[in-house]
């Protein structure tokens, strides 16, 4: 279930290894999972893998690559850019022979446009930043430090920013400020209301919901046919 995938190196250097969690039995339908990011990645990790288990039971392979700089990755998060995450996901789709893509929350920002698939509760770059910056200003206020969203945005654009423990580089920050998920041809948006219940990314602490995982997996399995 645990594999690695090779991400092409920038500047033609050696390819980097990143972790891959996969239910890979060489079946016809192979769904690339573009996971949620940062804090939401933690909150949605179990849900994501529970959906993958259900897809496996429905006869569908699924492939969840780590984004470079996240989880077990050996490269620094602060050096990552949105553009490189996009090309990394496109490379993963190709090398893993993905036939579909399921993007979750901000994962929609890096979903390969050429694959048919689904965007589940897609999150835009500006909203992602807004939430993380707000968390930082609230924590700062609690600690008696004065920080403003505007001031933090300026620092982020100029030299990157530590948000919620994630060091986001300046280029990534500037890219996220204008990044909107694009639903490509053959891709469908799945709103939380179609899944029922409340989004697990909202929870203060990671949680699970078997019913939600059932419904998202069923929606995908029915659509693949």
């Amino acid at each position, binding site marked *: 279930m645990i594999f690695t995938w090779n991400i092409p190196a920038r500047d033609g250097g050696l390819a980097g290894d990143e972790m891959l969690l996969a239910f890979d039995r060489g079946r016809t339908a192979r769904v690339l999972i573009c996971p949620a990011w940062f804090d939401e990645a933690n909150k949605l990790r179990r849900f994501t893998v529970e959906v993958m288990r259900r897809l496996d039971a429905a006869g569908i392979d699924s492939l969840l690559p780590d984004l470079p700089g996240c989880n077990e990755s050996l490269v620094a998060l602060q050096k990552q850019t949105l553009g490189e995450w996009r090309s990394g996901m496109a490379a993963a789709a190709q090398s893993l022979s993905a036939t579909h893509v399921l993007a979750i929350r901000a994962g929609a920002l890096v979903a390969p446009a050429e694959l048919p698939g689904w965007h589940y509760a897609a999150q835009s770059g500006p909203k992602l930043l807004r*939430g993380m910056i707000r*968390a930082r200003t609230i924590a700062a206020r609690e600690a008696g430090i004065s920080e403003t969203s505007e001031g933090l945005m300026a620092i982020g654009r100029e030299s990157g920013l530590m948000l919620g423990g994630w060091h986001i580089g300046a280029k990534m920050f500037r890219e996220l400020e204008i990044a909107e998920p694009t639903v490509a041809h053959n891709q469908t948006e799945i709103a939380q209301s179609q899944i029922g219940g409340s989004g697990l990314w909202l*929870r203060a*602490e990671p949680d699970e919901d078997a019913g939600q995982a059932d419904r998202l997996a069923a929606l995908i399995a029915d659509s693949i046919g």
Partner: protein
Amino acid sequence: MGSTPFIEGQLDEAALDRQLKALIADVLGLDQAQAAAFGAESGLFGHLPELDSMAVAGLLTEMEDRLGIVIDDDDVDGEMLETYGGLLAFAQAKLDPLQTPS
């Protein structure tokens, strides 16, 4: 998600109360009955260990989406976040600035 709680241009306080409780239930993973038990003095930020700054930020961002309001840095203070009553009064004032929250 729910529409802005207005009836014929008037702020429907009961609807706002229900929406805000539902949102807190979503954040804290409570069922609706538990959330319904929230009173004005029920403690939030600083009282519930799971409600850290990241969770509060998520709650405020979701409030913006569900209620159609914009919450500025200056709006966020200890009083507003400390109790359920404080948060409800804040939401009321944001939705209906002419009405002074009690």
